[in-house]
């Protein structure tokens, strides 16, 4: 830079803040390397402009530091756009977000390239402000948007994960759902709330676990013959330690989203992980981790992982394509052992060499180890974890060097993304294991555990938001467990009083059982003569043509192929005592359930019963009372006897959960009966319409799955909402004491 030009620049820069003047030299030096002369002038003009907008020196400093790179990326036109936008921002109630805004631009550069996209980005922020501005007494935008700063500060985290459209959806969701809840809005945009994580997972690039769970389940069943449930964990930028897939005693845990990698699709990456985990399950035995130093564990794991991979590839040779594509290929000599610890590097190179015959080991020790390894597995032998532990120890000792204990560890390309954390075969003995269980967990997190021995892992369901016309992803958590059992004879006693009813029902069943007769025409041997056809045949016969002999018709019974799910609301209000009879609604429900269960069982239809209640969206309890394959017997009666009423009625989530069982039933007609005493409601749903609309949506979802929903409502004032939800498919029972009689009748009416 000639002194003249420098002079010119200096004259151009008119900002008088001392801190800015100090920064002038260094920033000019870096700007000069990447910007043209004209651009530098514009850059300095921009800085001058920001000096004068009355926000102090800080925005100017951020601008001066970050802009050269941004200008180089987007071109000179971006200066005008950004300074103008900064000016707008400074004049708005959101002036505090000016600095975060300027700071966010640097990370925006990483993913978006065109000036149009930059404008789109600004447009997204504008939209957010527009949606969240507060209007008080007709004065607009006097208050800032609550989550604005949090949002702009989160941009560096969002940009690598989502495309701009995804970011827009993310912001849109937060802005419309937390409009009036500033604290939650902040938490959302800080990416700390569960919802934020779910939305990111939904909008993320790559393959979503939820969308392919079904396929993985089938792959697990048919390829690996295993029945452990699959579950996903959140992969989150905030976590310092990246979670790895793992195989627990009762669960297969996989990441919630996987992007394509090395031309292996996300789905196939899931399959590769599944294969590796299942291979451990099939072939690994346990080792006591306390007997091995951590570094030694690394080597033993490398051998054991390679062994199960080899066996898996022997079984399914196609896995080779996945494994070799996904396994890192640490280059020869990439790690300098005089500088840093090469332990991981060595382990990964060894592991590659063990599964990849083409790998150029360039190391006699690795070659020797490969030979031993392949010898262990030759002639279709499976070898053993123990043998691998010996090989690992051998390799560790022979390859050990001083630098292994250096604090700087070479990490580059040493992580095998399809492998798990091997907790399956390393087990620990810890003396104080038990202590943890004694001290109660004071910091229970949002997802409260409602687990007991009989419970299944929680399932997440979306909930419909009628305001934004979209689903709130993973909004509700359903815990399913076996209903506790009580005294079965209690039910028998209750039902005794209804002997008369049972008798009447029995005669109805008799009528129903050989259902709808269907006329079958064109029968050679039939019950009655079908005159039309008989005449036609006679004419044929007289005219010398071969007559059709099928001149009779007969009747056949229509087959009855129906599966019924009875979903019972067990919310607190069931404890209300009916003024006419002095019994609780719960008691009537129990009797009605028992009688209906008996009726349907006698009819021989597939029938299941479940109870539900909820305590906020993070705890929807779904209790299994009778399964489709269970007979109506003392066990089921005992469960009915033990029914308790508590909490609220989050119907949509329970219906979705029940539907996934009903859906799997091979029946022509599927019916879901919902027995409830009030409208869908929960203590965390302030808007009474929200759960009603969600339930309505659930009914629609069920319908599209071929499930017919029908509501039996004990609330006399149900007309207001029940029609909205179930259109015409409901019965309101005004006199509760009639429920035991009406419930089975409703069922028979529906199914005949």
């Amino acid at each position, binding site marked *: 830079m000639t002194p003249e030009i420098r002079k010119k620049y200096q004259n151009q820069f008119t900002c008088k803040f001392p801190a800015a003047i100090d920064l002038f030299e260094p920033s000019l030096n870096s700007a000069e390397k990447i910007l043209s002369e004209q651009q530098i002038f514009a850059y300095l003009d921009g800085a001058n402009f920001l000096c004068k907008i009355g926000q102090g020196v800080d925005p100017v400093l951020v601008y001066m530091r970050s802009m050269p790179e941004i200008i180089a990326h987007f071109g000179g036109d971006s200066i005008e756009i950004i300074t103008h936008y900064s000016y707008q921002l400074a004049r708005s109630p959101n002036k505090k977000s000016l600095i975060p805004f300027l700071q966010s631009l640097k990370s925006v550069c990483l993913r978006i390239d065109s000036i149009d996209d930059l404008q789109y980005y600004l447009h997204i922020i504008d939209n957010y402000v527009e949606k969240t501005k507060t209007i008080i007494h007709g004065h607009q935008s006097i208050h800032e948007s609550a989550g604005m700063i949090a949002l702009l500060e989160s941009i560096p985290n969002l940009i690598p994960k989502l495309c701009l459209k995804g970011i827009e959806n993310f912001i849109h969701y937060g802005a419309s759902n937390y409009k009036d809840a500033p604290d939650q809005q902040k938490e959302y945009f800080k990416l700390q709330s569960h919802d934020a994580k779910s939305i990111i997972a939904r909008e993320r690039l790559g393959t979503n676990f939820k969308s392919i769970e079904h396929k993985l389940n*089938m*792959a697990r069943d*048919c390829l690996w013959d295993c029945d452990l449930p699959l579950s996903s964990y959140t992969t989150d930028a905030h976590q310092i330690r990246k979670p790895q897939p793992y195989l627990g005693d009762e669960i297969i845990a996989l990441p919630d989203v996987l992007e394509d990698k090395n031309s292996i699709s996300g789905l196939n990456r899931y399959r590769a992980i599944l294969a590796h985990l299942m291979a451990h399950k099939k072939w690994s035995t346990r080792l006591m981790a306390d007997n091995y130093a951590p570094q030694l564990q690394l080597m033993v794991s490398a051998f054991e992982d390679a062994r199960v991979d080899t066996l898996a590839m022997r*079984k*399914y*040779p*196609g896995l080779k394509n996945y494994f070799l594509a996904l396994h890192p290929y640490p280059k020869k000599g990439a790690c300098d052992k005089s500088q840093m610890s090469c332990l991981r590097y060595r382990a990964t190179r060894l592991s590659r060499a063990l599964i990849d015959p083409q790998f150029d080991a360039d190391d006699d020790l690795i070659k020797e180890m490969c030979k031993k390894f392949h010898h262990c597995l030759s002639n279709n032998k499976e070898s053993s974890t123990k043998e691998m532990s010996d090989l690992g120890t051998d390799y560790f000792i022979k390859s050990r060097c001083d630098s292994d204990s250096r604090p700087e560890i070479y990490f580059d390309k040493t992580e095998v993304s399809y492998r798990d954390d091997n907790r399956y075969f390393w087990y620990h003995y810890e003396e104080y294991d038990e202590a943890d269980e004694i001290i109660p967990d004071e910091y229970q997190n949002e997802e409260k555990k409602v687990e007991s021995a009989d419970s299944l892992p929680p399932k997440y369901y979306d909930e419909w938001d009628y305001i934004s016309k979209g689903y709130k992803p993973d909004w509700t958590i359903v815990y399913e467990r076996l209903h506790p059992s009580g005294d079965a004879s209690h039910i028998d006693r209750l039902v005794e009083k209804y002997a008369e009813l049972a008798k009447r029902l029995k005669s109805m069943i008799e009528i129903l059982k050989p259902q709808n007769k269907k006329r079958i025409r064109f029968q050679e*041997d039939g019950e009655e003569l079908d005159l039309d056809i008989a005449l036609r045949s006679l004419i044929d016969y007289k005219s010398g043509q*071969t007559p059709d002999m099928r001149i009779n018709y007969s009747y056949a019974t229509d087959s009855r*192929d129906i599966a019924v799910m009875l979903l019972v609301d067990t919310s607190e209000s069931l404890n209300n005592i009916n003024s006419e009879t002095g019994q609780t609604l719960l008691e009537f429900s129990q009797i009605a359930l028992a009688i209906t269960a008996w009726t349907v069982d006698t009819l021989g239809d597939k029938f299941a019963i479940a109870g539900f209640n909820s305590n906020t969206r993070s705890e929807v309890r779904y209790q299994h009372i009778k399964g489709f394959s269970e007979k109506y017997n003392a066990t089921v009666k005992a469960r009915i006897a033990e029914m308790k009423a508590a909490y609220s009625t989050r119907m949509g989530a329970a219906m979705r959960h029940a539907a996934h069982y009903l859906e799997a039933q091979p029946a022509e007609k599927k019916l879901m009966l919902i027995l409830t005493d009030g409208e869908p409601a929960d203590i965390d749903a302030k808007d009474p319409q929200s759960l009603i609309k969600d339930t309505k949506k659930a009914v629609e979802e069920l319908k599209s799955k071929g499930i017919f929903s029908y509501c039996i409502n004990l609330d006399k004032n149900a007309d207001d909402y029940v029609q909205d939800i179930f259109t015409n498919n409901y019965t309101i029972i005004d006199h509760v004491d009639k429920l035991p009689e009406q419930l089975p009748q409703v069922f028979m009416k529906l199914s005949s």
Partner: protein
Amino acid sequence: MDISHYKIDQEPFYKQLTNEVDLYQAAYAAKLPIMVKGPTGCGKSRFIEYMAWKLEKPLITVSCNEDITASDLVGRYLLDENGTQWIDGPLTLAARYGAICYLDEIVEARQDTMVVIHALTDHRRELTLDKKGELVKAHPDFQLVISYNPGYQSLMKDLKQSTKQRFCAMDFDYASADLEASILIKEGNIDQETANNLVKIGHTARKLKGHGLEEGISTRLMVYAAMLINKGITPIEACKMALVRPITDDLDIRETLDNAIELVFG
């Protein structure tokens, strides 16, 4: 009447699973009717063919369907230029001249139709042709065999107890992996490795039965795949065509099986 054209001249390929050949021979000697049960394509019909060949008896096969009537089995009067003429149905033919009559997939026929076989299948061994007014005494060589697949039919299509209890029954299932592979090698003329892989895929799909698949991949389909491979089709293509496409229209299952095929053939 000569029914020798129903005789099987060439030995059909059949691989014995256990002692079923002996069992069948004993039943035949004792003039007992037989019911063979098992999933589709596991070799029931082939076994009967093989036994007919071994016993050197003619085999008359009737594939049952819903429209089949008693007259289709027993026979009927037909019109010709001279008036009417009685034509024996397959069952009458077999009973009169001494053949093995094989009613394949009997549950597909309506239950009341099957009552006509009752008198033939107990100690009476006779068949009444009521339209003709004749009582046919069964030939000593006559035997009735029915097949049925208990798996896929609905409850409505079960056999009547009175029909069921006239038969000795033999259970069939898919052969063990090794045996199935050897069947594929013989029938499809493929090498051992390909046969093993086909069997592996077959077993894979059988595990999905009840999880969206009504029925696993049968040995018959595996033979088809082997034959396609033998004609120069790549194994992956052949498997997709012969093993996956026929059994399911569910996209997820299809994709899972396709992937399994790719994994197995590498």
